């Protein structure tokens, strides 16, 4: 009779990174903090009720200028910085970096963890905002637009968190100076702006959103989603490259 040796399963690094991201990077305080941006999304939904237009159009206008231009980037900044940049600055990233885990797995795992957080906090709040605004038909479009916008933004902010020590300042500069200010004047920048692209995704899927909300030259629907995916891939690529060359100092340095 031969004794059977117990099966030995090697742990799946990717799952460990994901669990760590949700457990440690997004701690209880950050989960609680998500109520702020979720509340802001709902407030924008309520704001739509005050506009003297059909509910579909009113919500579309508020969503375009409030949710997709303000709530989604700010929420993504909070999440994107928490999953990597904050850890690098606090001096505990070496627990992850000093392992044989491939850097792409670390970057993608952290980003994916951030996307999950956005999926369970920001996305439902944006969908609920449509319901609150009296336009439940746009809830799905708001959810898809918010999710795709968050996916791209989180990747961008993960990259900025790896590059800059004052990540919040640089991230805000990216949103308000590059995207908003330069993007308003230069169409080329707007073409690759997560705000404009996520807005295009929302308008494409919403029932009554005016097409005038989509900027000229920005593809509708799937095309915008592809661009957002490309932006996300670029952000992750930059973060991966940066991690390979990073100088990890302690928190006190």
């Amino acid at each position, binding site marked *: 009779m031969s004794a059977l040796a117990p099966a030995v399963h090697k*742990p799946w690094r990717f799952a*460990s990174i994901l669990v760590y991201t949700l457990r440690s990077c997004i*701690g209880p305080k950050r989960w609680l903090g998500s109520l702020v941006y979720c509340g802001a999304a709902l407030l924008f939904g309520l704001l739509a009720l005050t506009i003297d237009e059909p509910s579909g159009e009113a919500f579309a206008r508020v969503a375009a200028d409030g949710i997709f231009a303000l709530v989604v980037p700010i929420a993504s900044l909070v999440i994107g910085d928490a999953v990597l940049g904050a850890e690098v600055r606090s001096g*505990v990233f070496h627990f992850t970096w000093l392992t*044989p885990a491939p*850097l792409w797995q670390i970057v993608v795992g952290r980003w994916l963890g951030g996307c999950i957080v956005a999926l369970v906090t920001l996305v439902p709040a944006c969908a609920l905002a449509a319901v609150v605004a009296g336009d439940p038909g746009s809830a799905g479009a708001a959810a898809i637009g918010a999710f795709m916008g968050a996916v791209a933004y989180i990747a961008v902010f993960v990259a900025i968190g790896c590059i800059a020590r004052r990540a919040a300042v640089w991230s805000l500069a990216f949103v308000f100076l590059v995207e908003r200010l330069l993007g308003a004047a230069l169409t080329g920048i707007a073409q690759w702006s997560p705000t404009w692209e996520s807005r295009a995704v929302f308008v494409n899927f919403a029932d009554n959103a005016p097409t005038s909300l989509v900027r000229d030259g920005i593809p509708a629907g799937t095309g915008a989603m592809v661009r957002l995916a490309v932006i996300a891939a670029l952000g992750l690529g930059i973060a991966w490259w940066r991690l390979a060359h990073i100088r990890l100092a302690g928190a006190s340095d």
Partner: protein
Amino acid sequence: MTTMTTSHDPRDPAFVGDASVEVSDASAWFGQKVALSELSCSFGPGVTGLLGPNGAGKTTLMRAITGLMPLNQGTVRVDGRDPRRDRSVHSCTSLVPEDEAVPSGLTARQLVRYVADLHALADRAAPDRALAEVDMLGVADRRVDGFSKGMRQRTKVAAALVTEPTVLVLDEPLNGADPVQRAHLIALFRRLGAQGRTVIVSSHVLHEVERLADRIIVLIHGRLAAAGDQRAIRDAMNDRPRHVLVRGTDGRRLAAALIGLDSVAGVRLNGDDVEISTSRAAELALALPAVASDLHVRLREVRPLDDSLESLFRELVR
């Protein structure tokens, strides 16, 4: 473990024959501040103590060895591999940094398991074994961010040990530990060194390094100031004066006779205790019994006053 071949003089105490970590002409600077300056040395099996005052470059060297920091010039090789370029190095190296920072929201067991998982360690009992090594198994389910400094340090040591690294780099690992835990950790590090692992320890608590390290490397201003065991370092400094305390039955007569010896640079009398300054200790050791015998003075005690690392360190920094 790969043993590296070097072209260095085998008698150079900065290098060991069976090196697993080799540092060559390493320089690192931060703006105007030079942290390491053309440092060359190697580390092999056993415990090596890294000593130096604040800002000497110890932490920078440790971070360079583990790949956390790039060098501006020079190279670091761990088992022949560049820790900045080859991430497989991290499967055999571990670092315990001096920083108190620990990930928030995790228990000690979760943190050690996370590190084990990223090393793809199949042994599910390894985290508990590592925590038991540092006497933390009893509090393994408490959150690390709620621990005292000493407990955090021990948890970080457990996280470093869980993968059974062949190269273990410990930056001030005894910080915050109580005396019992210090003794426990010192015994643990010595055991790891005796197992053939390369253990590199920095500390400001010099008497602990005396108990801990087989070999010492002293850094000052980012440069190698001395290397070898305590006695070898002392011998390398034989052009500097040493101090020897002599206790005899008649200190005054003994001091008067000793001052005439060529090997004696100075004498200080304190009751019957004679404190001798010498830069030729070997000669003094031969002459002293003869002088005492001629004077019919009985010697009760002869001991060097500055063989401790504390005094050695003061001398090197001077």
